[in-house]
């Protein structure tokens, strides 16, 4: 059969992020695959050289909309190592808690995306509804759903009080109950098992050879996890299991992620129990002495690596970032080899490539005014309803009908 080359992308090829793929097909079978990346390149490494270390904490946090805590932690860890700063114990535990909350939000988001890609949109609706529980907790502790602004050089900027502790524990119980349900679905629902098994196969030796990281590697039996192997924050004081699987396919990647969700709840409970009292930050110098450090962090998608070189001034000489997707994207060609074109979206989505998910807006600029004001959630809701009403879309009669029907 004649081979056909199909360009896919760069406008949102299955993902909500620009990437361009070139797929060579023979009928429906994939013969070759290549990716063109870089559409999201913003020059952040170069921009870091022009900014102070404190500014860079916030800049690196914005590398990714989902793994924002991952990048800022990897960066501050490197700077703290160069400056010889030992952060307070309480700060280590708080970094660990935020890190795991971020993993929960990322993995639940992924589970929904995976459900959507295989036409199982009920799973998307369920998981994204449940994800709101962890998003609310993150907003409560940090003030933000993403880009938390928790890290600073020398510790964290906000403490966790007793009331917040109680709310986190309550949320963990609810999420654990929901995750157990998803595990039942993933291990007993035949449609899911058969749709994901044998799809996007990455044999163990190829995962090792291509340097796969995170759940992508662990689902091919690569027993590597930075939290255990190169511990940071409070991970050296916390007991947890590294979840691996030997299915080597999308099904395995699903099992690893739901397994990691269960571990995350355990880690958070332990961290909240063991977190010592005390300060949350130590003073850091504005100028960082000349030196270099490599910092590693287990982000939801795998190992995140930051290399920082300082020159004794208040700005870094060089900041290098290797996000996990860059390590994993090279495995996709292998996963798609000899596969079906229809499997392409779920196989790509299964490495969980990063895309920005921030789209909640609370800052409103009033027409004709230069004033910026923050809106509470309820006000925002009312604003939305009125905005639609002005456009002629009014659900109030329907709501009345539904209320009556519910009473009956």
């Amino acid at each position, binding site marked *: 059969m004649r081979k056909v080359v199909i360009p896919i992308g760069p406008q949102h090829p299955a993902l909500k992020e620009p990437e361009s793929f070139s797929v060579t097909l023979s009928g429906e079978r994939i013969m070759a695959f*290549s*990716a*063109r*990346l*870089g*559409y999201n*390149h913003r*020059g952040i*490494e*170069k921009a870091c050289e022009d900014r102070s270390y404190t500014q860079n904490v916030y800049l690196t946090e914005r590398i990714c909309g989902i793994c924002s805590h991952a990048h800022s932690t990897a960066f501050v860890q490197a700077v703290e*190592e160069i400056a010889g700063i030992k952060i307070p114990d309480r700060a280590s535990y708080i970094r660990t808690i935020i890190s795991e909350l971020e993993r929960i939000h990322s993995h639940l988001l992924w589970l929904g995306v995976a459900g959507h890609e295989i036409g199982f949109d009920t799973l998307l609706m369920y998981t994204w509804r449940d994800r709101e529980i962890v998003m609310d907790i993150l907003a409560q502790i940090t003030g933000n759903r993403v880009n938390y602004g928790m890290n600073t050089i020398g510790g964290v900027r906000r403490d966790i009080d007793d009331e917040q502790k109680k709310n986190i524990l309550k949320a963990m119980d609810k999420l654990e109950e929901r995750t157990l349900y998803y595990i039942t679905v993933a291990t007993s629902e035949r449609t899911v098992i058969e749709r994901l098994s044998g799809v996007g196969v990455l044999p163990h030796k190829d995962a*090792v*050879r*291509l*340097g796969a990281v995170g759940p992508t590697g662990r689902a091919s039996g690569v*027993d*590597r996890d*930075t939290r255990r*192997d*190169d*511990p940071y924050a409070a991970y050296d004081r916390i007991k947890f299991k590294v979840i691996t699987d030997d299915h080597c396919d999308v099904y395995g990647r699903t099992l690893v992620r739901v397994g990691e969700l269960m571990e995350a709840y355990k880690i958070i409970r332990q961290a909240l129990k063991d977190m010592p009292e005390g300060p949350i930050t130590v003073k850091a110098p504005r100028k960082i002495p000349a030196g*270099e*450090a*490599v910092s*590693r962090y287990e982000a939801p998608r795998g*190992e995140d*690596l930051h*290399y920082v*070189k300082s020159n004794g001034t208040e700005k870094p*000489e*060089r900041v*290098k970032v*290797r996000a996990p997707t*860059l*390590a994993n*994207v*090279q495995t996709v060609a292998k996963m798609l080899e000899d596969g079906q074109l229809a499997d392409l979206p779920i196989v790509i989505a299964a490495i969980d490539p990063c895309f920005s998910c921030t789209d909640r807006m609370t800052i409103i600029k009033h027409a004709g005014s230069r004033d910026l004001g923050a809106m509470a959630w309820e006000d925002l809701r009312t604003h939305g309803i009125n905005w639609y009403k002005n456009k002629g879309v009014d659900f109030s009669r329907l709501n009345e009908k539904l209320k009556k029907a519910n009473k009956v």
Partner: protein
Amino acid sequence: MTTREEAAKTALIKKFGFLENLVRIQRERRIFIDDAGQDFERILDFASEDLGFSVLCAITGSDDGTRYEFIYHMARPKGDMLNIKIYTPRDGSRVKTITDKFPGAEIFERELTDLLGVKIDGLGEGNRYPLSDDWPKGEYPLRKDWVKKDKKPEGK
């Protein structure tokens, strides 16, 4: 510092005598080779095959104003990381590809080509990364003497 890092340092010095003052244990699980020089490939082979540093995490390229520095970040289980440095002059900088041993190195080498303008000998054809196809020729943003042409202040 544990004996693991010390053992790796000793093995490196035993095999490559000139590394005596060039291997440095910065902290637990972090080893640096400050200049592997002409023996880079042999050191990389020895580190990956005999010492277990078989995972290439990244390649960092940087410009110190007088020469280019390349750091090959190699990891092994147990979290140890060996950072092997090599240097080239700024004029006509070339390094040899390591994609024959580490296929995952391709994206990092393309990054060096795009951002520093380094020639990678032996790197096959492929898509550029990460700059756009219409990026002007001869502009390498990670070079220290590179200046942004667009002087418009950010955020305006």
